């Protein structure tokens, strides 16, 4: 047997976008381990220059198919901050429902369709439809519910059109919300069952820990998703306007996506970061599910991000039911948004499935965008993936190539990278 191991995973599968993994070891030592983002760059910030405020949401939602609702939210919040547009309490409640719908959709897609094949030792969810039909049907049911909810609140699950500056172009009826509430209540049991199925196979998640910084929105009074200041496990919170202090983007040659860092060499954002920072504000039911897995803050195992997503899925159901009750208690009415175009600069920060997403626009007095910046959660995580690679690689030397490959692939997958977003790509290479 050769003492040289060269692995190259080209275009890692079951992730959104294109990335490669490289692992080279010689004489029992790791020579190189690298996470490389090879996605074709798309230049969104350049594209929106000169575009009207009215099309910024529609264009930037196209950054990502999976989190287009999240991009829309950050985009609208940035435009509203730039032009001084106020939104009603009703609009905010509905938007919070939209954020939950997308997190649910994305989390169940990730855990159920993309991660579960690793836990069952297969290449995709398709064979599981035969071997574990009952489990797959439950996952499909939860995915369909999440898409139904996205469609109902935002108009469409991919590239939503009801979300607009100042409010909505259309809102659900009371009857539709009552129906949604019933379906959410009915989803609690199947969600717990899916959690139990994952738990039964959770021993496949490697027991790996590396201390790092976690960053997520905080309000000090709830499990912050739609709004808040930028919190960290290392430093005090700062308002969203100071986001650049938290991201510090830089370019590395192996990646068309930019990297980010804050108080250390890298940090993590996403479900596990939110869980670690805002655990106390989770609903009792969500805490119960976390307890099933023994998940407690602060958890330094990135593989547990998928479990944190299940916990968030449960919490989203509970909070959505509460929001619907609040909406039904008020006298819901539809008003088509009206506002004046004003010049200004604004930041929109929102928690989306993969973490904290920032959009910043400068809009001139004609209502056209003159400068845009979008900092995407996956970009913020690339540096942390690389540092996890460097920490875990020495423990893998001497193991079979297939196992090394799978462990590294699962690590990247755990972050649920959205590489289209971050420019968009993932490859594993054992060269």
């Amino acid at each position, binding site marked *: 047997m050769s003492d040289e191991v060269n692995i190259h995973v080209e275009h890692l599968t*079951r992730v959104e976008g294109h990335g490669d993994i490289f692992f080279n070891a010689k004489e029992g030592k790791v020579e190189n381990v690298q996470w490389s983002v090879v996605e074709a760059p798309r230049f969104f*910030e350049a594209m929106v220059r000169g575009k009207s405020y009215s099309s910024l949401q529609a*264009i930037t939602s196209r950054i990502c198919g*999976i989190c287009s609702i999240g991009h829309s939210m950050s985009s609208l919040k940035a435009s509203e901050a730039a032009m001084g547009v106020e939104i009603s309490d009703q609009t905010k409640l509905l938007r919070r429902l939209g954020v939950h719908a997308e997190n649910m959709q994305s989390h169940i897609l990730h855990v159920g369709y993309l991660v579960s094949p690793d836990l069952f030792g297969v290449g*995709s*969810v398709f064979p599981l439809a035969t071997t574990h039909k009952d489990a797959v049907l439950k996952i499909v049911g939860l995915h369909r519910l999440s898409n139904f909810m996205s469609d109902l609140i935002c108009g469409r699950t991919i*590239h939503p059109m009801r979300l*607009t500056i100042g409010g909505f172009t259309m809102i659900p009826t009371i009857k539709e919300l009552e129906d949604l509430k019933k379906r959410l209540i009915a989803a609690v049991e199947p969600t717990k069952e899916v959690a139990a199925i994952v738990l039964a196979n959770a021993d496949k998640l490697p027991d790996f820990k590396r201390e790092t910084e976690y960053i997520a929105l905080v309000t000090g009074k709830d499990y912050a998703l739609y709004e808040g200041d930028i919190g960290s496990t290392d430093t005090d919170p700062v308002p969203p306007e100071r986001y650049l202090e938290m991201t510090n983007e830089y370019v590395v040659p192996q990646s068309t996506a930019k990297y980010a860092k804050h108080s250390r060499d890298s940090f993590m954002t996403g479900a596990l970061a939110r869980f670690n920072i805002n655990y106390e504000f989770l609903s009792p039911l969500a805490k119960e599910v976390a307890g099933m897995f023994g998940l407690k803050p602060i958890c330094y195992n990135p593989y547990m991000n998928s479990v944190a997503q299940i916990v968030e899925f449960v919490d989203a159901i509970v909070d959505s039911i509460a929001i619907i009750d609040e909406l039904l208690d008020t006298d819901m009415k539809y008003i088509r948004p009206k506002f004046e175009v004003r010049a200004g600069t604004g930041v929109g920060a929102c928690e989306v499935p993969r973490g904290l997403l920032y959009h910043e626009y400068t809009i001139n007095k004609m209502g056209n965008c003159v400068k845009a910046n979008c900092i995407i959660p996956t970009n913020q995580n690339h540096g942390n993936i690389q540092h996890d690679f460097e920490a875990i690689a020495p423990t893998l030397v001497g193991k079979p190539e297939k196992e090394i490959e799978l462990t590294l692939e699962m690590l990247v997958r755990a972050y649920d990278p959205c590489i289209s977003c971050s420019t968009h790509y993932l490859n594993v290479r054992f060269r």
Partner: protein
Amino acid sequence: MKPRVAFFDFASCEGCQLNVINLEEKILDLISIVDVVTFREAMTERTDEYDIAFIEGSINRPMDEEKLKKIRANAKVLVALGACAHTGGVNKLRNQWPVENVKKEVYGDADIEGNPLFDAFQTKAVDECVKVDFYIPGCPIDRNEFARMVTQIAMGRTPKLPTYPVCVECKKNENICVFEYGEFCLGPITRAGCDAICPTNGEGCDGCRGYLDDPKMNAAKDVMLKYGITLDMMMKKLNMYNYKKEGY
């Protein structure tokens, strides 16, 4: 033998492939008539042996164009999936500036010169690089239209797209015309097939499905004039999915 199907993606948001996954249980019906052999977003297995290739995304770099040409050589039928592949989609918005300008805007002074990953040219629709047999339009694609077209292609038929505008579907849905809200809509010249989903949700059509082969441009201009749409507004909308489309 069932036709073997492969999915590939270039510069895109992968939302069209996600909409395929969003077919939920209906996927199981589809895999009873085709074999999915490559689908990176959802499965680990992959192969160069396939009959029908679905391409999502526009083409941004020499390395991508080369890969696309290999796919074309392998595939019996090549289908452009979604707006980015079909017209270049929103990706073409950047083509109004030279590549050097957009690189500078996004990557600043970073040293990316000579790095093939960053070697972007002005983005191209798939049919600007290789022959395309069929188009499934939309941003994102309509999943029911996708299921119907896959079935037709798998059966060796020629799938057909509607030849009438979005307005026809919008009227059928009994919507108030969004021009009445002071919005601007490309419904009059855009190919139907989406069930007028945007106007039905109170938002004007952005033309993501591309224009009709024979759009009634003069009639559309009359509507724009009637509602006081400025040339600037109109051009911005026209460019969104159909930048530098010939004839307009």
